[in-house]
């Protein structure tokens, strides 16, 4: 799965850059000569790497929108490229020098100083400017979506046709059988056979014969009872086990996009899993670390896939979810500031251990080095998070029996491991041998 997503990304990047290149090559001629000196493709890479955290092309973020920034500056403020070089390389210096426009911008954006980029060469800045001068690529998504929708419809019709044909064929077959039987019956009557008598002579019906055989009845009853008990037991055992529990959340948060497509480490958001018993649901300020600059979803450039569309997961849908986050955290997009009016998100808790169990994430994550996926399943593929493991005591115990304790480079285990492994005559100790099956280790 990982490989596939990677390939998708490559093709997406290639596709986007091709489109961008084509558009640019047309636009280059329309721009003035200075911009022509830069390479917008390189510029885009540089822009994403250095600037995108605070700037977008067409909207205000932490810093101003940068589309056509050069022409805007030269037309409105009479500032040339040299000024831009100086600004990018050392904006605090420019502000300090008392430059009017520099101070105006500085004050307008809450006096948040722009990071100095002394490492960027003039050529790099040229490239970035070239990128900003070119209009951003038009999304081709909508078209593709429409096209795909059409194709989806056509396949639906053909399926129905095939089914209809099958029904007709089946009907014909039935009719033929009826005809054959009638013919045979007619032949039998013609030959003088008494069908009714024949039937009576054949003896008792099967069910009566069965009812009369007590042994068979007994065996069947026992079998029925046993299988009934088996299923009843199975049913009872799943009471309170919420494996596969997949509640609808207030904000549609896709682990697939975050942990899968973008490969964000689980513990970046669930940081307390390293040190605490709780993995912690990330607070909204953690979301805003990234979502301050990621204000819309444009993940799949070639457009959403068929099943995404079937579920309604369009880019607009995801962007709408980001807006829900902004509303909850009280982020004013236009002014790029917090309003102070926040409303905590009420997530529906998926993994519920009863109160009588003590479970500590850090023990498993930090000490034992267990992957999150071991218990939580392929989270990076989950569009909607669900409970992967049964979270029953038997499931816990099995793992404790099978898993070896990670004792390497941990001084705590040095002595106890040496002594215990000698006692049990094993190379590596399981969690169970270390005492991980004792009641009091999890119940107190």
């Amino acid at each position, binding site marked *: 799965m990982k490989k596939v997503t990677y390939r998708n990304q490559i093709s997406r990047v290639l596709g986007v850059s091709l489109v961008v290149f084509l558009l640019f090559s047309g636009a280059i001629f329309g721009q003035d000569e200075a911009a022509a000196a830069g390479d917008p493709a390189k510029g885009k890479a540089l822009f994403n790497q250095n600037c995108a955290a605070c700037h977008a092309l067409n909207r205000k973020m932490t810093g101003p929108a940068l589309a056509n920034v050069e022409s805007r500056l030269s037309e409105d403020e009479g500032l040339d490229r040299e000024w831009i070089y100086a600004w990018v390389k050392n904006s605090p210096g420019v502000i300090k020098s008392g430059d009017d426009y520099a101070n105006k911008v500085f004050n307008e954006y809450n006096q948040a100083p722009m990071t100095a980029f002394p490492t960027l060469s003039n050529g790099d800045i040229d490239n970035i400017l070239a990128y900003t001068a070119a209009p951003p690529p038009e999304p081709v998504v909508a078209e593709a979506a429409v096209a795909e929708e059409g194709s989806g419809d056509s396949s639906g019709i053909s399926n129905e046709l095939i089914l209809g044909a099958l029904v007709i064929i089946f009907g014909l077959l039935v009719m033929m059988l009826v005809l054959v039987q009638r013919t045979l019956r007619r032949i039998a009557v013609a030959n003088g056979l008494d069908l009714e008598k024949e039937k009576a002579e054949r003896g008792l019906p099967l069910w009566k014969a069965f009812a009369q055989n007590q042994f068979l009845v007994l065996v069947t009853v026992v079998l029925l009872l046993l299988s009934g008990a088996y299923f009843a037991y199975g049913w009872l055992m799943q009471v309170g086990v919420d494996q596969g529990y997949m509640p609808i959340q207030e904000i549609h948060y896709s682990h697939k996009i975050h942990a899968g497509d973008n490969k964000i480490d689980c513990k970046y958001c669930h940081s307390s899993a390293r040190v605490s018993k709780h993995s912690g649901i990330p607070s909204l300020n953690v979301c805003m670390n990234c979502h301050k600059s990621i204000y819309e979803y444009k993940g799949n450039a070639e457009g959403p896939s068929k099943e995404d569309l079937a579920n309604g997961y369009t880019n607009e849908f995801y962007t709408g979810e980001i807006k829900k986050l902004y509303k909850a955290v009280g982020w004013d997009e236009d002014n790029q500031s917090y309003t102070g009016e926040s409303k905590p998100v009420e*997530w529906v808790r998926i993994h519920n251990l009863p109160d009588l169990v003590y479970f500590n994430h850090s023990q498993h994550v930090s000490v034992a080095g267990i992957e999150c996926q071991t218990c939580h399943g392929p989270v990076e593929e989950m569009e909607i998070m669900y409970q992967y493991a049964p979270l029953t005591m038997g499931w816990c115990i099995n793992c404790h029996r099978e898993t070896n304790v990670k004792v390497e480079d941990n001084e705590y285990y040095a002595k106890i491991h040496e002594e215990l492994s000698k006692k049990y005559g094993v190379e590596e100790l399981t969690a169970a041998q270390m005492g991980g099956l004792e009641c009091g280790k999890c119940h107190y």
Partner: protein
Amino acid sequence: MASNKKYWKSEAELNPNDSIVEALRQNEFVEEIPVDEFLGDKEKLSSTNTNRRDFLKYVGFSTAAASLAACEGPVKKSIPYVVQPERIIPGVANYYATTIANGFDFASVLVKTREGRPIKIENNTDAKVNGGANARVQGSVLSLYDSTRLQGPVKGGEAIEWSALDADVKAKLNALKGSGKQIALLTQTYASPSTSKLIAEFKEMYGSVNHVVYDAISEDAALTAFEARYGERALADYDFEKAEVIVSFGADFLADWQGGGYDSGYSKGRVPKNGKMSKHVQFEANMSLTGANADKRVALTPMQQKIALAKLYAKLNGTSIGGEIPEYAQQAIDAVVAEIDKNKGAAVVVTGLQDVNAQAVVLAINESLGSKSYDAKAPKYIRQGSVKGLNALVADMKSGHVGALIMDGVNPMYTLPNASEFEEALGKVDLSVSFSTSWNETTEVTQYAAAANHYLESWGDTEIKKGHYSLIQPTIKELFDTRQFQTALLAWMDSDKSYYDYIKETWDADVLGGADWNQALHDGVYVSGSNSIDQFVETVASTVGLDEVDTSGVDVSSAVRNLSKAVSGGGMELTLYSKVGMGDGQQAGNPWLQEFPDPISRVSWDNYVTVSKADAITLELVNEHAANGGLDGSYAKLTVNGVTVDNVPVLIQPGQAPGSIGLALGYGRSVGMKEEMKTGVNAYPLYQGFNNVQSVTIEKTAGMHEFACIQLHNTLMGRGDIIKETTLEIFNTKDHAEWNKVPMVSLDHQEVEATSVDLWDSFDRSIGHHFNMSIDLNACTGCGACVVACSAENNVPVVGKEEVRRSRDMHWLRIDRYYSSEDTFEADNTKKEEFDGLSGDKGSLGGFGELEDPATNPQVAFQPVMCQHCNHAPCETVCPVAATSHGRQGQNQMAYNRCVGTRYCANNCPYKVRRFNWFLYNNNDEFDFHMNNDLGKMVINPDVTVRSRGVIEKCSMCIQKTQKTILDAKRDGRVIKDGEFQTACSMACSNGAIVFGDVNDKESKVAELKESDRMYHLLEHVGTKPNVFYHVKVRNNNEA
């Protein structure tokens, strides 16, 4: 040798004909399950509408309904922070150092917070003075979450805004500025440099401001005596660790005497080291915690104590003085003087008599002894109250000279003996404001009730002892619309400073002397460098002449004369005292403290008048044991100077000096309290002139009071070797096999040591951790801080008075108190045999009367008992569902969710430490304590399960804490050091009586203690191999 002493738990046990005692000896549970009550009554059964068939239908339906309902789990919401505070990680505790300074308790503590909620108080081991939290301080965190707290300012019963209150008060204060009427501030003792400075500035601004301090339980006499001698209104400090001879005249210094905090030093000197330990002689009337710990306790009425003190002074100075005291007291004085002469520089004399003469004499004695445990150079400031100042204020109020009265931290309408006079005087004051955390007797009569912060929500500072500063910092934002007094003062002074800034400025300027503020805040305490102390020594030495002993000799000799002329005012002598659990009554709404059993009487949820057996017989006062094992007592009426307190329950207290009675202050609160918490009687009306000794008449009244007493619930059942004790002489001279006998059992008709016989094969416990707990009976003073700490750590429910009376208390840790008499009455036996004729020296006529009554002056021993975590636990083998099992680390584990409640384990436990949840104690209106409201539930420790109905629970040896220690070490990849493993009780014990640790770590302290000669296990002959062990109590008592 001492193991053949007779031990007993209550005075009734000495009566061989007491049927209840007999029943308790035979039965495990006091009360039978009342099956007969609901099944035996045939008439009732047949007359009921519900017949058997219906009953079965209901059972079937409810079972089906319950199991169907269980199929669908509830939807649980999880709400993360919007902006997570930097230092809060859900699931990880934060600790903050702060200080409690509520006017009665002063202690530097650490506060454990979880997700921003304070949930437990712990000792601040960095603090050099008052770093130990007593039971009340341990319990104070629950008072933060008291549902009856005042949630905002109130004017005449109606809630108002702070801005309105500010406007009214400011207008009034400004109007008073030039009017000639005074503005009075009536407050608790703050001992706070910043508050003093702030009040001085307030005075400057508003002119005629009169700041009066009073303590509900006053140390005025001690303060006055100290002031007369040293020129400063403070209290001498004592270091009992350095003392070799301690003589106390009615000073309960292990409890609340002069602000308390002396027990940890005392305990350190009580553990025999190199054959030496301190000797403690106590002359007192009530059986106090301190008297219970004394090597020799002499029961004297307060009047006799005064004479005895005078005689001691005279004898030390080689003179003699008149006055009548009993012969045994005279002998005791002579013995004490001999001891003091042997250890001149290491003897200390203290007194709790609220009498300036007595206090002055004691200061003089200590100074002349040159006692190294006596410190007048750096005195304590934690009591400042002035009776004179208060009386003057009330007089001023009455005469209409007071324009405004602003009160903080005091509840005069409850604590003043002349409350009605105060109320009348209050009527003549134009403006009255009372700061209080809850609605109380005083807020009811003042115009404004200003909702005050709890100390865990406040900023502040204190100077507990000269040069020893500590800081108060909030550990949670104000839960309600409350404000601390100092913040309000700042607001009324039109200052825009916060009190935090104010403290910081004060400290930077006057206290820290260049030291780091953040460090001081982190530590919670700051000891100013030698400069200030030296300075003080210089000034005082030059002005008062500290180095000369007899500066105030003239005064002392007259004081001694006055003392020796002490006469009883007729009638009984009443000594008012404060209980370890309740103090001055500020925290009367705290269910933990209400349920905390008194260390001596083992009575919870009550105060009572203690009388001696002899007086009880003459006054016809009785104590009886009811059929359910509860204790009943007569009611009495107490009258002091025409003030009568009626319906005071009577408790016959062994050791109470005949002719004296005792009554605890701090009970009988009635306003703003939940019905359950309105316990006991208010003794403050008898506290006239702030004197703890009163002449009283006592009279029996009708009716019997039902006590919730843990006294007789479980007896020793004839197993006399539970407490082992010996004397220092035997301890030093004889082999431990003699004074710490290992019980013998018969194996193959051979007498062998019980410890060598085993029914089971032992597991190999040498690998990994093996936890043991050591309890030193010498260091344990019985103070009970561990009991409350255990309740807080382990979510132990409060069950209420009725349930405690039914012996259904839930404390995981109890401190058993045993009385003992002289060795098996042998002295009496000899005496009896030597009777010769009816009269004369050896005549039986008077002789029988002289025979010792064991209840007159027993010795006392305290023994904390929790689950002993037996390696061969009897409870584990009888559990039908394997709900209780043993861990490799030595802990006996209890899986509540497996338990089906057969109680076989409780039945089979030889130590009676298992507790059964008879009811659901949370979310149950029948038990309307803190677990029944959302606010009170905030104190619950999230790492420990809240138990449900029908399961057994017991001490887990704080497995949540040991597991956390292990996990922290694993995460850091390091070996665990000794001292890291702690339980709630071992952490709470500032006396060092409870030591916890890993015995497989041969370097650890607990491993060393296990090898001690004094080590023994409870009921060794049962062969349970407990992981808790005790140390034989050694008394420095050569006469026994």
